[in-house]
């Protein structure tokens, strides 16, 4: 079963961390990646650039209109994700708890099953 482990980021929370706390998160991701790579559960992980780099495209009457900035104005935004293939929902939740962000007060990991895939080199 495939799950997307979604990391919702909040810059205010991130900025409030000490340098060593931030380092611990970064190191933790490295360890997490190693763990799920070796277990054969990692499909792909990606981290996204800041939402200030986002643009939103709408096509109305065939004419695209582009606005800069994120789609939703919110404190949290999609920071990145892990796409994993694991035995069960329970295992996906277990993996989510291993992501360092899950232990940071004010942050959490959202776990959602994948329903449709295409384009992966499988």
């Amino acid at each position, binding site marked *: 079963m495939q799950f997307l482990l979604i990391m919702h980021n909040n810059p205010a929370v991130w900025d409030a961390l000490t340098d060593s706390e931030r380092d611990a998160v970064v190191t933790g991701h490295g360890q997490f990646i190693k763990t799920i790579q070796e277990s*054969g559960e990692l499909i792909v992980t990606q981290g996204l650039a800041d939402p200030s780099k986002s643009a939103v495209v709408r096509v109305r009457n065939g004419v695209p209109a582009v606005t800069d900035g994120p789609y939703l104005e919110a404190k949290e935004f999609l920071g990145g994700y892990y796409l994993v293939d694991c035995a069960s929902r329970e295992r996906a939740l277990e993996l989510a708890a291993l992501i360092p962000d899950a232990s940071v007060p004010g942050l959490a990991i959202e776990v959602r099953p*994948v329903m*449709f895939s295409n384009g992966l*080199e499988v």
Partner: protein
Amino acid sequence: MTGSATVDRGVEDQLREAAPRVLGALVRRYGHFDECEDAVQEALLAAAVQWPEQGIPDNAQAWLSTVATRRLVDQIRGETARRRREEADFQRQPADRQVERPADQAVDGGTGLDGTGQDDTLTLLFLCCHPSLTEASQVALTLRAVGALSTEQIAHAFLVPEATMGARISRAKQRVKAAGASFTQPEGADRQGRLPVVLHVLYLIFNEGYTASSGTQLQRADLAAEAIRLTRAVRRLLPEDGEVAGLLALMLLTDARRAARATEDGALIPLAEQDRGRWDRAAIAEGLALVGGAMASSELGVYQLQAAIAGVHVQAERAEVTDWPQIQVLYQILERIWPNPMVTLNRAIAVAMTEGPQSGLALLAPLDSDSRMAGHHRLAAVRAHLLELAGDRVAAREAYQLAARRTASLPEQRYLTARAARLS
């Protein structure tokens, strides 16, 4: 060599059936399951490349064995050379002797059997379904070492990248090694405990092929066919085992309905609406004979019972003449020896068909508080179906919609959404 230029399906089957025997002989002789397995894979790859060009050897298994042995020896030699450099020792002699006596000649004479006349396929299955492994790893390792599928093929079947599957298989091999698993069949109580694990892994492979747990395709037929092939192999080795026969029967009786199970564009067709003329009669006949024989001669088990239930369904010429009372009794027995909410759920359908939808719905109520079942789309789907039978269109529609939101399978979602729409 014969002159044929293509590796057709029959030859591929022959090759893949030979692979676990060749692997078994290698492991018996040299140990090192991990390295032997790699060597056999390389030999299979070599066959896939060479045979279309050079023709198919007369004795495919002996060819495979010779090439795999050579690969293994090359590998051992490479390691030996390293050791020699390090230890300045003479380790080369064994490797040379290995070259003179390839496994197929020295051990099995190309028959696929070891010195004792035993087929190692079952021993390999026990190893691949070792209790130290997760289910996903047992499945992957079984498909590679016993099914002789490449990592790429397995990854493709499970819709994950090759790197992911490669890591999973290599981790599984390390685990088996670390667990100190020996290349012998478990005995006594250990065997009684571990054979069901093997059967469960085969069942998982079948199910993954028959009902893809996610994605657009309802069926991934190759995995179902592979599971049937492997279960047939186990049955040849354990012809007296009722549950092995039951599992094979269950697969055949389920797979027999494959062609009728979905429309050409992939939409799901429920059992009651399937064109029964498209069911595979040969598979049904074989499945019924298997389950009948097993139930008459061995201790009752969960696979036999499930096969018997599938058998009652396929024996009905039309959905309306299905022998639901018999199905209900079979589910009752199944629930007694294997109590679990999925069995209760299925029994509720049988009860609804014999005693009326309200009786079925009453059986579903306790499942709402069962954590294994509460959020499952199957519970909502069955409830929707029974509510529809009871004539409660509004509640049925809501339950179908709930089920549609919960499922992770697109064809199922499509079906459930359509059922809901029909009721509005």
